[in-house]
């Protein structure tokens, strides 16, 4: 390997550490805002915004119980794997007008694969717990994974296909390319409706990916007492809570990159560090608004579905909506 190659790796490592740190802090902060907003909508006072930070530190000093039926090395290893896999996705996502840290080293297809790793981690952890509740939770998580993949992939494929028609010379699955060419500007009226349907599809896949109400069947506190997390405590549970916070940022950032990659620095004739600053702030505002719609609002407005209802919802109505969106975009392209 050349010196240049080593230098690139060193810079990427420094960048990765900074982004991982910021991703975790932002995830916990937004989790606090989410809980506060949900409480306000339910006419409760709610916890302070710093509550997720306090929960994390409290969990770190609590006993880390490994049940006698568990497979200890898997049981202890899975929280680490889940958090690491979730954090790595952040490196492939753009932030404001800053290209992804690993831009050129992985595309959106890789992100879709990486998104399955935290879910697989939860499943393995559930099975390794040796508890019937965790076992049922893990089985439900598997069924969920099998259900929301088709609508999620439909959304990505539709945008990639449209970009390939307009810019055949570009790497259409690259997040940097998708981020630079918003779908809304590439389509006519029919395609606009199609893109809107795809946005709705992704907005409903997001709470499923995050196991939030109405798709929180793998955890289902009232029936499974926490499901696949029922036997987890202490520092293992603390790592799962971090992974949950970071995954929220990942999924919401994915929505921003696919549908709302707009920046505002050019409106104020800003450049350089000021442009990066204002676009990053705008990115944070977009994250907050989209998180409110995709996570907070949906979980306050809806009740938990049963697992067969979840599977049906993703496989039938939502897949049809996604495929309809894709068809409209294809039709729009053919007719132009």
């Amino acid at each position, binding site marked *: 390997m050349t010196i240049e190659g080593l230098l690139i790796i060193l810079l990427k490592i420094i960048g990765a550490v900074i982004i991982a740190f910021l991703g975790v802090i932002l995830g916990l902060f937004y989790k606090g805002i989410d809980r506060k907003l949900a409480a306000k909508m339910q006419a409760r006072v709610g916890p302070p915004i710093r509550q997720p930070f306090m929960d994390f530190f409290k969990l770190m*000093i609590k006993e880390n119980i490994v049940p006698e039926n568990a497979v200890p090395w898997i049981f202890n290893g899975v929280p680490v794997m889940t958090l690491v896999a979730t954090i790595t996705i952040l490196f492939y996502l753009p932030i404001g007008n800053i290209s992804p840290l690993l831009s050129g080293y992985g595309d959106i297809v890789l992100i879709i694969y990486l998104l399955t790793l935290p879910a697989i981690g939860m499943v393995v952890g559930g099975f390794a717990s040796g508890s019937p509740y965790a076992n049922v939770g893990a089985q439900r998580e598997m069924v969920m994974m099998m259900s929301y993949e088709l609508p999620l992939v439909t959304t990505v494929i539709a945008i990639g296909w449209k970009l390939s028609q307009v810019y055949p010379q570009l790497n259409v699955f690259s997040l940097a390319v998708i981020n630079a060419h918003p779908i809304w500007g590439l389509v006519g009226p029919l395609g606009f409706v199609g893109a809107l349907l795809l946005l709705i599809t992704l907005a409903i896949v997001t709470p499923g990916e995050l196991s939030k109400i109405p798709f929180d069947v793998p955890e289902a506190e009232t029936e499974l007492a926490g499901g696949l997390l029922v036997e987890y405590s202490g520092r293992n549970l603390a790592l799962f809570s971090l992974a949950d916070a970071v995954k929220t940022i990942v999924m919401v950032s994915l929505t921003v990159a696919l549908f709302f990659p707009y920046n505002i620095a050019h409106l104020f004739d800003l450049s350089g560090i000021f442009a990066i600053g204002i676009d990053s702030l705008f990115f944070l505002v977009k994250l907050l608004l989209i998180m409110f719609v995709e996570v907070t609002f949906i979980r306050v407005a809806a009740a938990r579905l049963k697992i067969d209802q979840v599977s049906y919802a993703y496989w039938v109505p939502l897949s049809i909506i996604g495929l309809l969106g894709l068809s409209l975009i294809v039709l729009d392209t053919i007719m132009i």
Partner: protein
Amino acid sequence: MLGLLETGSGFWSAIIWVVVVLVISSIVIYIRNKGEESYKKNTEQDKPFISGNPELSKEGSHIAASHIYWGFTEALKDYYNPLVKIHTGNINDYSGWIIIITIIILILVGVSG
């Protein structure tokens, strides 16, 4: 470029991914090691949680693997039930299906040229 694999429509570098995974793993493991690691072994604390019920036997409290896809098969039963009926176990029926599917494929290939 650093082990970049290009498939024609997609690309990724496994080397870079493995490097960042190793770096982030070491940080996460360091943070994990800062947490409390003890608990009271061989007490009530490490018994499996079954809503306060005693664990009658290890085998008896397991969930059978046949339940694994229940939600999935229940949601798509309109699709699976006819498929189950088709599986008669009779080799003549299966041979018939192979012939029918082959004919359909040949017609499709012939029509599409």
